[in-house]
């Protein structure tokens, strides 16, 4: 193919399969640095467990009549975990990783809790993280769909109407400056008073958080075609609807997906925050809340990781969808 260089474009000779091969080779190259960073984070976490849990370690040791320094409990009370760990290194290290309600559970403890909550419990159990995750995720997805639809519609309006641009955009921005933790209880109370409860209030909060990145991204995307592209359609006598469907919407797809990835993560946060003020009995937010009531740190961390894994899966799924769609559209 390279011999056809005067005619063929750069990289034209590299077929689809060639690109995939290049990507696979690139992954092998990046695997080592990625694993190194992961190992560093885990090492840091294990290290942090020692001072964080030192108070409990030393107390347990003292109760078992092991010599600790300082000897008096009242002297120890005011000391920081770091100071205690430095003065009792052996005791602090030995006791750091096996505590029941550790201030900072070790990674393997969180992993065990995650395992117990997902694989170890039947999905129908109210201790199953899969069940709680699904409760949160269903509200997240519903809100995400609402928010995305609202965001796209608003963006189309903003791009086509100067009045909407000037009247809607400022409110959209203001809406995001209000802390969600302040507005979430109000949304729930207001909706409850009109008889709406359950999944919808949480979805509304999710939508509230996720419409904004979609509006911003889509406004940029719909405005991305240059004046030449718009002139070209003008020479065909195209209507505004045709300009929208033939040019603006397809051109905005890469922007849409960037926004969707931010939007789904924001949606998940919205659903979790929506579970906090009601004392909901189900959902990852409920697990977080219950964990902090009863000092079940492993449960908190397990719920946090479950949320993070859900977010990562959703963003990954959107990324795959993006590659598939843009690939089908020939945009590589």
């Amino acid at each position: 193919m390279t011999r056809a260089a005067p005619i063929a474009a750069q990289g034209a000779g590299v077929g689809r399969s060639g690109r995939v091969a290049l990507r696979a080779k690139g992954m092998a190259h990046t695997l080592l640095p990625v694993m190194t960073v992961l190992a560093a984070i885990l090492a840091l976490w294990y290290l942090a467990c020692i001072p964080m849990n030192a108070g409990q370690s030393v107390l347990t040791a003292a109760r078992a009549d092991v010599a600790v320094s300082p000897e008096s409990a009242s002297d120890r009370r005011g000391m920081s975990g770091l100071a205690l760990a430095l003065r009792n290194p052996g005791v602090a290290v030995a006791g750091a990783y096996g505590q029941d309600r550790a201030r900072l559970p070790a990674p393997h403890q969180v992993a065990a809790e995650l395992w117990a909550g997902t694989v170890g419990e039947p999905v129908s159990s109210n201790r199953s993280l899969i069940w709680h995750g699904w409760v949160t995720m269903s509200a997240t997805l519903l809100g995400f769909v609402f928010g995305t639809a609202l965001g796209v519609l608003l963006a189309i309006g903003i791009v086509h109407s100067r009045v909407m641009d000037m009247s809607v955009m400022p409110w959209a921005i203001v809406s995001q400056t209000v802390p969600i933790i302040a507005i979430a209880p109000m949304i729930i109370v207001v909706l409850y008073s009109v008889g709406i409860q359950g999944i919808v209030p949480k979805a509304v909060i999710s939508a509230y958080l996720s419409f904004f990145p979609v509006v911003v991204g889509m406004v940029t995307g719909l405005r991305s075609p240059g004046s030449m592209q718009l002139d070209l359609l003008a020479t065909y006598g195209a209507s505004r609807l045709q300009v929208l469907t033939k040019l603006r919407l397809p051109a905005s797809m890469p922007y849409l997906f960037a926004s969707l990835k931010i939007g789904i993560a924001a949606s998940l946060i919205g659903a979790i925050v929506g579970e906090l003020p009601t004392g909901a009995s189900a959902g990852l937010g409920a697990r977080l809340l219950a964990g902090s009531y009863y000092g079940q740190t492993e449960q908190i961390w397990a719920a946090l990781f479950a949320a993070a894994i859900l977010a990562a899966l959703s963003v990954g799924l959107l990324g795959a969808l993006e590659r598939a769609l843009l690939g089908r559209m020939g945009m590589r």
Partner: protein
Amino acid sequence: MTPVVSAHALDLTFQTTDGAVHALKDVSLDIGAGEFVSFIGPSGCGKTTFLRCVAGLETPTGGTLAVNGMSADAARRARAYGYVFQAAGLYPWRTIGGNIRLPLEIMGFSEDEKARRVRETLELVDLAGFEKKYPWQLSGGMQQRASIARALSFDAGILLMDEPFGALDEIVRDRLNEELLALWARTGKTMLFVTHSIPEAVYLSTKIVVMSPRPGRISDVIESPLPKERPLDIRDSREFIEIAHRVREGLRAGMEAA
């Protein structure tokens, strides 16, 4: 025979933050059906602006302009012309065939008609077999040929071309010039062609409009005596060199007067 494009005392002033820019001043020109007219001049001489006025993309501030006997805007809505921009501007999410189908979709041609016209225009620009390729799989010259096919697909009588080969190298440009002449001979369309290149203008045109800047105006109109049949080596002939010389003189005179 009534002219296809008829401009009389055309004026266009842009209001910018730095004050008024006189883009066109007192431009009068008639273009007959089937002519190949090149517009040549330095940057800012208004050649592109004039083309955009004919296309109805700019509105003149003075004078009269008729395209196919109507106002430029009415002619635009009647789809009287195809426009080729300096960049090919193909949609990256459409195949070559899909790009050529774009104007046909907007203008509401039937499915059979769309397929037929895409096939025919692709053959016309020598891109048969590339219908299913994406723009990034084609070279710059091939992309520009596809954009010409796109402008030809709905068979408008006028083709407006704004430095279509400006971004291409000399070798590709020569070949495309040759192909463009053949295409013109086959289709008999009226061509308005903006260029920076003197040899290109002389080689292609039946009429060369020399323009000069500040304010943008016509400084010379040269009717070419060259035959319609033009092999590339006609550029070494005495007549060709004489016309090129006259174009150069016109450009120089325009610059000195400014």
